[in-house]
């Protein structure tokens, strides 16, 4: 059955059709929530919330985009709200700012050590996923919003409450870090020339 047909049935109240849509999209939605929240439990909650929201808003879904794109956007918005709430909590409880690039704050990444299994993907796709896990959150979040959610710099600045220049530089930094991680990981790019590695140390 096509997505369109599933959506049509789900709109008419067919729960089995909606369940199929959940099954088809759950990994992408969960992965996005995990990459933005950095926490497996939160990610599962956010992903569930996204599908519940999709179910409730189905009557107003006009099919102007695919269901996958739509639910992805709902997920992004829920994650942004979650990050906002988290920022407010951190503001009220005085602590080291997690967004301070110079604080040397290390990624807690409870999901890094997890012996979870990566879904079937190309070696490059898996390497990239591993690389993203190692990025500090202040770099990973803007990059994910850019590359996976397709947001503009302006939208990202608004979502993460940063100024435009910071967004731009963090995304650039994130890409550079990712490249470095992947070079060290091996076989990601064509073998780097020696002067590139030297240059890397300078940066």
């Amino acid at each position, binding site marked *: 059955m096509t997505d369109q047909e599933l959506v049509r049935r789900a709109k008419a109240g067919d729960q089995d059709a909606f369940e199929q849509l959940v099954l088809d999209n759950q990994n992408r939605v969960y992965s996005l929530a995990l990459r933005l929240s950095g926490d497996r439990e939160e990610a599962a909650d956010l992903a569930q919330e996204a599908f519940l929201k999709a179910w409730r808003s189905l*009557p107003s879904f006009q099919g102007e985009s695919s269901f996958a794109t739509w639910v992805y956007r709902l997920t992004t918005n829920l994650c942004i709200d979650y990050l906002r709430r988290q920022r407010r909590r951190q503001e009220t409880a005085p602590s080291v700012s997690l967004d301070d690039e110079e604080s040397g704050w290390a990624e807690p990444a409870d999901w890094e050590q997890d012996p979870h299994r990566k879904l079937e993907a190309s070696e490059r796709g898996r390497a990239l996923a591993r690389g993203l896990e190692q990025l500090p959150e202040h770099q990973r979040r803007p990059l994910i919003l850019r590359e996976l959610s397709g947001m503009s710099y302006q939208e990202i600045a608004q979502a993460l409450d940063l100024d435009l220049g910071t967004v*731009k530089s963090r995304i650039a930094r994130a890409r550079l870090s990712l490249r470095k991680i992947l070079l060290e990981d091996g076989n990601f790019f064509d073998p780097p020339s020696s002067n590139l590695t030297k240059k890397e140390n300078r940066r």
Partner: protein
Amino acid sequence: MECERCLEQLSARLDGDLTDRETQELERHLAQCPDCRALADQLKQLQTDFAQLAEEEAPPGFAQGVMEQIRREKRVIPLFRRPQFKALAGLAACAAICIGIYGAGLLDGPETPGSGAVLQSSDQSDTSISAYALPPENTEESRGEIAQRDALSPAGSASDSTAGPAGDPAADGPSLQIQAAAAPAPSLVLTVDAMPAGAAELLSDETTVSHSAQDGRDTYAPLTREQLDEIERLAQEQGITASRTSQEGAEGLCALVVLAG
């Protein structure tokens, strides 16, 4: 251009965020800096690779959990507005007339045990009879709906110890008073001209509806402050007139009044 600045420009170029002048400047630098050219290629490749990014697997039983949640909060459409209800109410009215005629016929003839009871129920308002005539529960229907129906049914009210003085529908005549008399008064009431689309889905199982036959209003209570805010937002989005009134009542307890029934 310095290589440091070049990185940001390369990144911005990938996102289509460079002006023509910046692009020219960047290209001049790339033409003379092999390191940055290599970096440009790698960053480009990195971006392309996002298309094949490996996904994490959702936790086991995830979809099941979502569906359970959906069934739990299955939208509560006000009972009186459901087409099935209206159709059944009509059917029940017919049945009531038939029973009435049958009962009257029996009275004309020799007395039979039980006929008095049949007649008595036909004397009651057609609401109570329509409640009797409702079909067996759909297993998927939420507890809230069952509660509403119980409240409607005289048998339910009689056996329900929590039913207050207003719980006797026979005394109220035909009006559909299902408000729990013991419920505390809400401190905040939102009055809307019509139920905004999507608002019914926000109501929880705890919220019950009472319909006033006099002015055609539907009153939904109790509601949380969050639900009220959300419904007000929906009403505003949909151009439905909504107004708030604060009154003496239980803190945090809200109610929704829908004018057009």
